[in-house]
């Protein structure tokens, strides 16, 4: 049986906690990761807020799902694109975000960065190059 590998792009544009989109996107990514496809994640607009560090949801009665992002590398999800312009508009820098890595089996499990900051033009090309785009 022939197997077609498609390039799936999960496009995240929503802030966490205020709506269920961010959490649902993460659930779908983890489920989809089981199907051996070429997966990329894009974070633009308020989506960049999903990856900020130090979430403490103890006093809002909601699950803090942000630690789950650190597990993406174990699911072979290692292409996480973040838009520079979206960070700038929100006064954020890469230092405000979680440091996400994946382990490269071919290089003695060396940890490599999963996050790549790209500009809007590059993000447009990433969207254009995807076979399938899932929007959240």
């Amino acid at each position, binding site marked *: 049986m022939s197997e077609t590998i498609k390039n799936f792009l999960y496009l995240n544009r929503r802030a966490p906690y205020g709506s269920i989109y961010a959490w649902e996107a993460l659930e779908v990514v983890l489920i989809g990761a089981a199907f051996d496809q070429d997966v990329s994640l894009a974070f633009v607009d*308020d989506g960049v807020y999903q990856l900020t560090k130090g979430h403490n949801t103890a*006093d*809002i009665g909601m699950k803090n799902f942000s630690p789950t992002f650190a597990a993406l590398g174990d699911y072979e999800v290692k292409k996480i694109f973040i838009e520079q312009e979206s960070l700038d508009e929100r*006064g954020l820098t890469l230092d405000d975000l979680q440091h996400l890595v994946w382990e490269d089996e071919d290089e003695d499990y060396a940890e490599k960065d999963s996050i790549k900051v790209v500009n809007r033009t590059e993000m447009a090309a990433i969207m254009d190059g995807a076979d399938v785009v899932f929007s959240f």
Partner: protein
Amino acid sequence: MTTLHTVNKSPFEKTSLDKCLQYAGGNSAVLLIEDGVYAAVKGTDVEPRIKTALDSVKVYVLGPDLNARGFSDGRVIEGISVVDYAGFVDLAAENAKVQAWL
């Protein structure tokens, strides 16, 4: 009449905050909650609008919603007061009514 205005949407996604600030009168208090708290953080494109608003209205932000999103009190624009749930209740009680900007 004094009014407590609440804003619970991100200023980057909805016009709720901008509309609220256009209508909120001189004796009003504006409380940022849920995704509205992003407007209280220093260094964003929204900051100039908040600073202008601070000249005429009191602005508060709900601490638990801020902390949930990874921001400490130190990231809040000067002039905005951080309140807890009891502070939210006090604001609701002090003002004649609550108007929500969704």
